[in-house]
């Protein structure tokens, strides 16, 4: 019987695989297993080593990305163009790995001191990063969906990590239920898209949608797919899970969600918008326009009223999402595409540094004050001047004050929108300008408390930050300043011809 089966298998040829192009993913996948096995073997007193090993796994993967970037000559296209490793993918992979590394640094002490350390945290973190790294290269609906699940499912569990805290449980269950609902919407849209175009490959879908007029089914499919991703990037009106999840989850996990998972959602959205939907710009552009305007306005107005700093950063992260979304509303206008793609990528990179940094300061300070209230940050300058300065840098950058990274990101986003030159573009730019001012108000309010107010209970003993948190602060401060002073480093990142490497496959 085996022989007859083997005889039938004669015409099988295994796909040729460019293993070097998959190296970052392979390193991470092996790393997951190493961490899982070591965690079983290590004695309770040596558990700190797990975080270090996780750092090395991420570093190994980062090295592979850098090697690919240095030696790469153009895009590497695998599986008939379904998985593409080009400059666009590599820069985002590097971003995900770096963000994850900072999160590992932040988690190291936070989880142990909170009394809810479990070694599997790092396993799940690396699995989630693996999903993101895969997402950056996925050019096929199937791999996009697998990547999305791979990055989301560990995240659901990480949100509920502090099992004895009711808010953490609430965070996990809300994130899980709404995330699964979003996956269902997305999957439905994908199945309609497959039914209407006959392919799951993004380039084929793009060609099919450009070929002739859009039919109603295409329109419904595009709307569903965009809405499915809108949950992941917490765009209004799909943002309800974000504040509760961000507040309830352990703070390092919140930092991870607000930067890495959000960036992954944007990457998926960019891949489908630029590769699969050029023929449907009349459908997604108004949709994204409305979502961007609502997202930045709602996020800002609600952030103004928060007294808890993590909750305020959660709403601020929602509103920053609106700014990142803004250029995509004009992605299909002639000549704007490259600028829009560039603006989103630059914003994602700058936002990763400044937002991770803001969370790092919050973690460092709350280790002492044990309070998330903004008022508890009073007098920070008098007893921890270093942290106060770092916090000023991050919040000023989030507000968009030059010469920090956030300023260049905002400038780029406005430029891309104004390039479109339509009435809709001017209106959106005006809304964004008003929102920049509102945002500055609540960022500055926190800084006033930090610099002007007295310490709430007269406790001015210095803050002792553990080495990993200091390292995380150093990385993020450096990133925020360097990107602001030398924006040329990333200004050309993700030129559109790099992304269209997908078409070559």
């Amino acid at each position, binding site marked *: 019987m085996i022989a007859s089966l083997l005889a039938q298998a004669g015409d099988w040829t295994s796909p040729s695989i460019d293993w070097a192009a998959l190296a970052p993913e392979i390193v991470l996948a092996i790393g997951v*297993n190493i961490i899982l096995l070591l965690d079983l073997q290590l004695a309770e007193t040596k558990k700190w080593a797990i975080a270090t090993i996780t750092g090395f796994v991420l570093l190994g993967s980062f090295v592979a990305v850098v090697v690919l970037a240095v030696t790469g000559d153009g895009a590497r296209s695998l599986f008939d163009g379904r998985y593409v490793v080009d400059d666009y993918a590599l820069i985002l992979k590097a971003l995900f790995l770096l963000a994850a590394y900072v999160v590992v640094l932040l988690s190291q002490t936070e989880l142990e001191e909170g009394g809810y350390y*479990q070694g599997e945290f790092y396993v799940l973190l690396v699995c989630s990063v693996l999903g993101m790294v895969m997402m950056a290269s996925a050019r096929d609906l199937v791999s996009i969906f697998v990547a999305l699940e791979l990055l989301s499912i560990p995240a659901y*569990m990480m949100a509920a990590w502090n099992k004895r805290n009711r808010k953490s449980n609430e965070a996990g269950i809300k994130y899980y239920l709404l995330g699964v609902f979003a996956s269902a919407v997305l999957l439905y849209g994908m199945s309609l898209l497959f039914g209407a175009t006959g392919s799951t490959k993004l380039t084929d879908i793009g060609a099919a949608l450009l070929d002739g007029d859009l039919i*109603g089914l*295409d329109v419904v499919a595009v709307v569903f797919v965009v809405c499915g991703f809108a949950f992941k990037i917490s765009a209004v009106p799909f943002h309800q899970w974000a504040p509760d999840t961000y507040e309830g989850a352990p703070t390092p996990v919140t930092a991870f969600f607000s930067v890495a998972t959000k960036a992954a959602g944007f990457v998926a959205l960019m891949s489908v918008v630029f590769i699969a939907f050029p023929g449907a710009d009349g459908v997604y552009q108004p949709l994204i326009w409305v979502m961007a305007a609502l997202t930045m306005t709602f996020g800002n107005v609600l952030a103004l009223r928060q007294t808890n700093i993590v909750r305020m950063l959660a709403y601020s992260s929602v509103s920053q999402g609106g700014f990142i979304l803004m250029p995509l509303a004009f992605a299909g206008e002639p000549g704007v595409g490259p600028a829009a793609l560039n603006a989103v990528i630059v914003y994602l990179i700058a936002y990763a540094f400044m937002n991770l940094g803001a969370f790092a300061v919050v973690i460092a300070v709350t280790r002492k004050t044990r309070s998330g209230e903004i008022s508890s940050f009073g007098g920070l300058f008098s007893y921890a001047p270093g942290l106060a300065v770092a916090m000023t840098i991050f919040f000023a950058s989030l507000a968009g004050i030059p010469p920090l990274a956030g300023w260049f990101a905002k400038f780029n986003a406005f430029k891309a929108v104004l390039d479109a030159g339509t009435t809709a573009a001017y209106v959106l730019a005006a809304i964004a300008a008003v929102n920049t001012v509102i945002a500055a108000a609540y960022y500055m309010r926190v800084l006033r408390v930090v610099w002007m107010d007295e310490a709430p209970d007269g406790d001015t003993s210095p803050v002792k930050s553990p080495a990993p948190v200091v390292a995380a602060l150093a990385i993020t401060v450096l990133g925020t300043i360097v990107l602001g002073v030398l924006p040329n480093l990333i200004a050309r990142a993700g030129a559109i011809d790099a992304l269209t490497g997908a078409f070559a496959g």
Partner: protein
Amino acid sequence: MSDATFLEFVVFFSAAVMILGGAVGVITMKNPVHAALGLVLTLFGVAVQFVAMQAHFLAAVQVIVYAGAIVVLFLFVIMLLGVDESMDLSIEPIPIQRPLAAVMAVGLVGLVGAAIVRARDALIIAPGDGIATAADAGTHDANIKQLATNLYGDHVFAFQLTSVLLIVAVAGTVLLTRKWPKDVADTESSDA
């Protein structure tokens, strides 16, 4: 072809009724065991549709994995949690949400239905138009072969990474059900 078409229509129609009836049952039944059985009906209906489309392998997998394993798992969970009596679902925290959900559902069905009706002409795929069927290949296992080519060729990377997803699921299940060490659990019971 015409005599076969009528039979195909009957099979399609009855399977569609099974799927929809089961789906409505899942959300309306008050007893969770009945809801799980409604799910079995839906999954069987999908399996029948697969058979009607010559996808015998998928139909078998559908019955074995979904109707067999997964629903049995549901029933086990229902049994272990002891929720086999009907629960009072009539209390509604937000009274408007049910009518609102109904309006949304009708609207969505109307929208998708209209889109499909409008797209009917554009979507009819001629035989041999890129999508091979078992009948084309002439052998019974062409279906499996095509599935394998797809899974282990074009989508092999996504397929492999699905196995990482299984690690996540196993690790997560262990974690979420694991008890805390006694000494830690006693000192702190924060609710803030």
